[in-house]
């Protein structure tokens, strides 16, 4: 492939002719607007989101609904509350879950019982709203637009400060009893030796 003696114009013409010849007629396998990926993003009208984070998946499972209900009964349940509200801040769980309980109770008719599913759905919705806000923030950064760092607005709430340390109610350390070792050919577990007390 040769270039003209004046270099510049020859290469420009070569680029234009080659690019137009090879790409000018390309239309790509594009689906119509209806099949575009962005069409499945949640809108204000509440369509489904294509992105299923592990938290959203857990929150939508029956086990998570049961956990959230049990957490409310027990009055603690930080793990379920964190999963449902997508926040490790106990202050957030308290507000979200308390508001959801009050709302769901008010919707119960005479003789009706059970607010577990209602509360779980409210907490899940709150979590999805938070995730959408975070996703929009990440998308703005990809577009080269800095994420606003000034105080939150109605549409872009500032997330609450996360406390340090482990949420309450989550067990620390290994379980008290270990399951028995699997059958004969495996390696035997070493005996558990208690730590030597330290005498200063």
């Amino acid at each position: 492939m040769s270039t003209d003696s004046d270099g510049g114009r020859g290469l420009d013409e070569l680029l234009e002719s080659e690019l137009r010849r090879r790409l000018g007629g390309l239309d790509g396998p594009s689906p119509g607007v209806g099949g575009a990926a962005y069409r499945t993003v949640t809108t204000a009208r509440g369509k489904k989101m294509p992105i299923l984070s592990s938290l959203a998946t857990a929150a939508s499972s029956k086990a998570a609904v049961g956990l959230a209900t049990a957490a409310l009964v027990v009055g603690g349940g930080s793990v379920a509350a964190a999963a449902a509200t997508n926040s490790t801040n106990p202050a957030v769980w308290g507000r979200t879950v308390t508001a959801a309980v009050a709302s769901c109770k008010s919707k119960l008719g005479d003789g009706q019982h059970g607010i577990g599913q209602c509360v779980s759905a409210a907490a899940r919705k709150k979590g999805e709203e938070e995730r959408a806000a975070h996703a929009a923030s990440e998308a703005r950064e990809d577009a080269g637009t800095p994420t606003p760092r000034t105080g939150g607005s109605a549409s872009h709430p500032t997330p609450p400060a996360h406390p340090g340390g482990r949420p309450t109610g989550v067990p620390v350390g290994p379980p008290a009893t270990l399951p028995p070792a699997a059958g004969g050919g495996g390696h035997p577990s070493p005996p558990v030796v208690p730590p030597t007390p330290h005498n200063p």
Partner: protein
Amino acid sequence: MQPAAGPPGEEFDRLYETTYHRLFRTLAAMLGDFAAAEDCVQDAFLKAFRAWPSWRRDVPAEAWLHRIAINTAISYRRKQALREVGRLVLRLGPPVGDDPADQALRGDLMRELRRLPGRQAAALVLRHLHGYTNREIAAALGEPESTVATRLMTAKRTLRARLAVPAAPISDTSALRRVPPVE
């Protein structure tokens, strides 16, 4: 500065319909792979949809979309390069042969275009395929116009060097015969 766009709606759908093919062609030239170009274009529109409320109307919509798409393609190229290194390290050998559908993307110039750094390749495609001015390229790449001019100049210098025809061998004197005798 123009106010930000409102929530995406029919305007975004129209933008998709009118700009999709141009974005696809840009990314196909940068990536040399139709499937990858399609994935990256869809990903770019998804990001643009989410970031739509933050788009300032003083930047042309297509240039703004190109910026997102080019960044997406550059990230893809980077990950692809890491994957190739991994394959070589694991001695998996070179990748399986090209998709015949990518025939249009073969050829010396297209190959050398893909070897250029992402933003240089993008600048060349925007100029010579889409006819963007330096100002429009600057908007698409999110860079000053002076940087765009430098990128174009560097990219063309590299292409000229890589695509130049090699010097004729000594045994071939046909070129010498064409030189008129000195009087």
